């Protein structure tokens, strides 16, 4: 798919009907630019949320679907918080991503999502390795002052909180696990982590793949039922 920047807009391309199935009212955009002013990644590869909204409202959907821009967006939603017209810009980005041919979505997301559907996490990290990493980090923590008696309980039935894990926390950012574990410990919280399907990062969500998102969310619901946990904590 090649999508050269059009040098002019053809009138027959301006088909608002293309967007009718999106109830986001992007055609009320006033082009004030607050979305772009609020966006943490605006300017990267010239990324400009205001232009994305305009492209969509002008019916130039096919062009934007093939572009890099929708994938630069972090979907943080700051744009729609400031939008005076209340346009759901992050939702619109997701809808644009969903229209992309699946084999053409960014490779890392394709691979991670395939891993998640096959193994329960984006890294395809085997269960033994996952449990080893958690226990290793927990042991390290007991060396810190006041945490001598810290321990984690994996797959503990009936816990108050079941928490999911962002895959980077058992990959490159293991130190970050400690921050919130310390909070749990100080609060005397009764919490647990599931050893299967623990992934909290849904690349089904980020790639606009509703079916994959449903499967991954369903597995977390299954974990809640299996472990009879009372509260789900799903940080992402």
């Amino acid at each position, binding site marked *: 798919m090649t999508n050269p920047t059009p040098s002019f807009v053809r009138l027959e391309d301006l088909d608002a009907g293309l967007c009718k199935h999106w109830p986001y009212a992007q055609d009320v955009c006033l082009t004030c630019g607050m979305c*772009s*002013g609020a966006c943490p990644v605006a*300017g990267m590869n010239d990324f*400009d949320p205001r232009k994305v909204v305009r492209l969509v409202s002008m019916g130039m959907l096919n062009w934007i679907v093939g572009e890099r821009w929708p994938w630069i967006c972090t979907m943080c939603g700051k744009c729609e918080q400031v*939008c*005076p017209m209340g346009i759901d810009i992050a939702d619109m980005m997701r809808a644009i991503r969903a229209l992309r041919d699946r084999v053409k979505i960014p490779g890392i997301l394709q691979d991670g999502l395939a891993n998640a559907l096959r193994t329960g996490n984006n890294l395809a990290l085997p269960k033994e390795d996952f449990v080893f990493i958690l226990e290793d980090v927990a042991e390290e923590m007991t060396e810190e002052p006041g945490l001598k008696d810290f321990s984690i309980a994996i797959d503990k039935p009936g816990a108050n909180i079941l928490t999911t894990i962002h895959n980077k926390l058992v990959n490159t950012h293991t130190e970050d696990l400690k921050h919130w574990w310390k909070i749990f410990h100080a609060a005397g919280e009764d919490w647990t982590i599931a050893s299967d399907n623990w992934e909290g990062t849904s690349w089904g969500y980020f790639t606009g793949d509703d079916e994959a998102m449903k499967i991954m969310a369903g597995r977390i619901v299954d974990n809640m039922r299996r472990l009879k946990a009372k509260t789900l904590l799903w940080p992402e």
Partner: protein
Amino acid sequence: MMSSDRAFKELFVNLKGKQGVVIGAGVAGLTAAAALSRWGVQVWLIDKAPVIGGHAIQFSCKAIEGCVQCGACQVHERAQQVSRQKNITFVPGARIVRSRGNGRLELTLAASGQGAGQSAGRFPDTLNADALLVTTGFTVYDPSHKPYGYGQFANVLTNLDAERILHATGALARPSDGRLPRRMAFIQCVGSRDHRIGHDWCSKICCGSALRMARLVQSRQPGTAVTFFYIDVQSFGRQFQAIYDGCRERIRTVRAIPADIRKTADDDMQVTYFDPQDRNATDAVFDLVVLSAGLTPTADNAVLASVLGMRLLENGFFCPHDNDTQPPGMFAAGAALGPMSIAESIDSAGKAAFDMVRYLDGGRLR
């Protein structure tokens, strides 16, 4: 001259003994009161404030080399006209709490609470009105909830704050330290054209008033750099092009509305926006930021409309009285109907006064 003008008008209509009540003594109310009085109507001009002139009397003349048609002087002229008329009674610090009757109304007054003490007991408890005009104007949007630190940062002002400072001191200095700003920014459309807060309308006057104010500041405080953040310039008014041509050479215009303001250690304002020319996220530092806060319906419109049995539009402004959309004898004019410039308010009030005269005369006058 005034009396011969009246004598001339009395050849056509006889409104002796007719009483008109005008609610709101801003530029529209003053205009209508003066016009009604010239037709021989006994006028009661009520305002909840202790003084006449409304918003517009707080504004400065924006002339630089010549008149820029801002309209500020018009208010003073109208106020003088009103003060010269014997058949206009100004009722300050009052509001209407009850209205009875159909045709001839009996209105009950109460102290508004503004300027209390000065006016208590100074006005009658009830007034009779053969016709009534609402000229309650507007309320400036309070931008505290927009991401600009209004109310927290001393050097972020609304257009109305800036007008008041200019009017009182003749200069626009930074509230934090009294220093004259070298770098100023105007941010347009704050609280208007904003669907999220239900303000779908354009406030119409802010592009012209911000640009006029910017030019006035540049003329009084030479060397002031001005950046104007806007969506599109709304060029209402016959004289707009004349002032706009002068602005474009002297004011940097950026077609983007900033999304954030932070305060630096020096009480400067760091403004974050996406620069459409550089195609990049940009932080620019200003000494002073003026928010063009939108014109919104007056806060007590709903109460007043319900007391009088008048209709409001969905957006909270008064419904125009044309086509029998308001009860007989009840009229509305000026920015009570929606955002309007001083000149438009004067036009609107003049027409409403004539509509009232025709009504009071039984529709004979054409």
